């Protein structure tokens, strides 16, 4: 913790939140929300939460703001501004917000001071993880070992939730050409930009290489399946923006994309069931030493974690690409932003 930076960043964050809410234009709102996410990333780095910061960096810069742009692109950016209307909702909202805020504010008096080393949250359970992770799994990055091993069951269902979200987007938006909504605007009227295309083409391989590094090196440095998957997805989103959908589909078809999403979740659950088959508990990786050559129980856990991270990365990548393509083309998968 660095409290000087903490105070400043938190102040900027609140300013950004107020501006996001009060701006009368959805596109501006999305842009300010992107800036808000930059500041959030700084805040988490400053509180030493490097993995959270990495996730926020990949998500905020690569995916979520672009999703907002795609949605605004397909709907409208105009806000109807009625100063007189919705008085009841405003009063209700203010009352609810003040009530909740007041209660939380009162409860805050009992909290331990920020960054107190002896706070209850830091004295139970977490010392166990910190002291045992090297002994149990030989993974120095405690976040990765807790994520993929100690709390592997939790993470499996988080991956499943992401997968279900992707399915929901497909089910809501995907439609064949004839039944789609009428094309309201002239979209993508032959616009080509050589500079952007060149740079996108040169940057995308570096992004993908870096994403693979992040997935593979997540045991020793911040990173892992979620971050790597989001960066992989972002590289494809960049290609879809700079070129068109046909270019992306020539690299990876729509069907293949959905298959990848399935495959990722399947890899995760499959490793769990493999442990079950070998006679241990679900997701108890140490039993895998029987089938992995030249490993002991500790290294088996480490290697199985890598497998799980790869599954997560594949699933997250496929879902990120799929959500963007569906939103940007309103489910017609022909042309987008």
């Amino acid at each position, binding site marked *: 913790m660095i409290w000087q930076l903490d105070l400043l960043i938190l102040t900027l964050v609140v300013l950004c939140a107020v501006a996001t809410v009060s701006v009368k234009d959805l596109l501006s709102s999305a842009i300010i929300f992107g800036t808000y996410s930059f500041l959030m990333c700084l805040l988490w780095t400053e509180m030493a939460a490097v993995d959270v910061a990495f996730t926020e960096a990949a998500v905020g810069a690569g995916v979520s703001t672009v999703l907002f742009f795609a949605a605004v692109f397909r709907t409208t950016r105009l806000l109807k501004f009625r100063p007189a209307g919705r008085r009841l909702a405003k009063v209700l909202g203010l009352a609810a917000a003040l009530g909740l805020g007041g209660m939380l504010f009162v409860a805050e008096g009992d909290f331990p001071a920020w960054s107190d080393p002896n706070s209850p949250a830091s004295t139970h359970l977490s010392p166990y993880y910190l002291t045992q992770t090297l002994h149990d799994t030989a993974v120095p990055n405690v976040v990765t070992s807790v994520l993929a091993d100690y709390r592997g069951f939790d993470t499996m269902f988080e991956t499943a939730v992401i997968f279900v979200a992707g399915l929901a987007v497909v089910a809501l938006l995907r439609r064949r050409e004839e039944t789609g909504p009428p094309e309201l605007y002239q979209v993508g009227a032959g616009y080509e*930009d050589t*500079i*952007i295309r060149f*740079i996108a083409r*040169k*940057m995308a391989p*570096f992004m993908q290489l870096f994403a693979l590094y992040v997935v593979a090196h997540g045991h020793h440095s911040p990173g892992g399946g979620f971050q790597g998957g989001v960066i992989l997805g972002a590289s494809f989103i960049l290609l879809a923006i700079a070129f068109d959908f046909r270019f992306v589909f020539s690299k990876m078809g729509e069907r293949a994309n959905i298959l990848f999403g399935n495959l990722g979740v399947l890899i995760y659950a499959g490793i769990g069931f493999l442990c079950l088959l070998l006679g241990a508990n679900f997701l108890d990786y140490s039993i895998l030493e029987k089938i992995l050559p030249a490993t002991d129980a500790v290294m088996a856990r480490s290697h199985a974690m890598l497998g799980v991270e790869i599954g997560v990365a594949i699933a997250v990548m496929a879902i990120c690409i799929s959500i963007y393509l569906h939103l940007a083309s309103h489910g017609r998968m022909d042309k987008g932003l």
Partner: protein
Amino acid sequence: MIDILTVGLVSLGLFSFFSTTVGLLRLPDFYCRMHAAGKGDVFSSVCMLLGFAVYLLHHPTLEMVLTSLKILAISVFIFLASPTATHAIVDAGHASGVMPWLKEKKEEEAP
């Protein structure tokens, strides 16, 4: 020696970011502000990153040298990506019909 170099580079970066900010706030129209932001942003970032990269060579172990190289890679990527972003924004502004600011026409155009 390394410390002096770091302090110098980082201070130079801070100063040029300061001038970028002044340009962003004070210049009259979108294209002028873009000029301040595009150049000053890249220059100040690269200066500061170089300063950090030099500072890491205090203890030239393999790990530190690799990190230093990574920081250089970051500055290369900023050098590639930031002008592209600037180009994209200016192009968008031009396409959507933002007129450049002209000093002579100021009185005529004022409603």
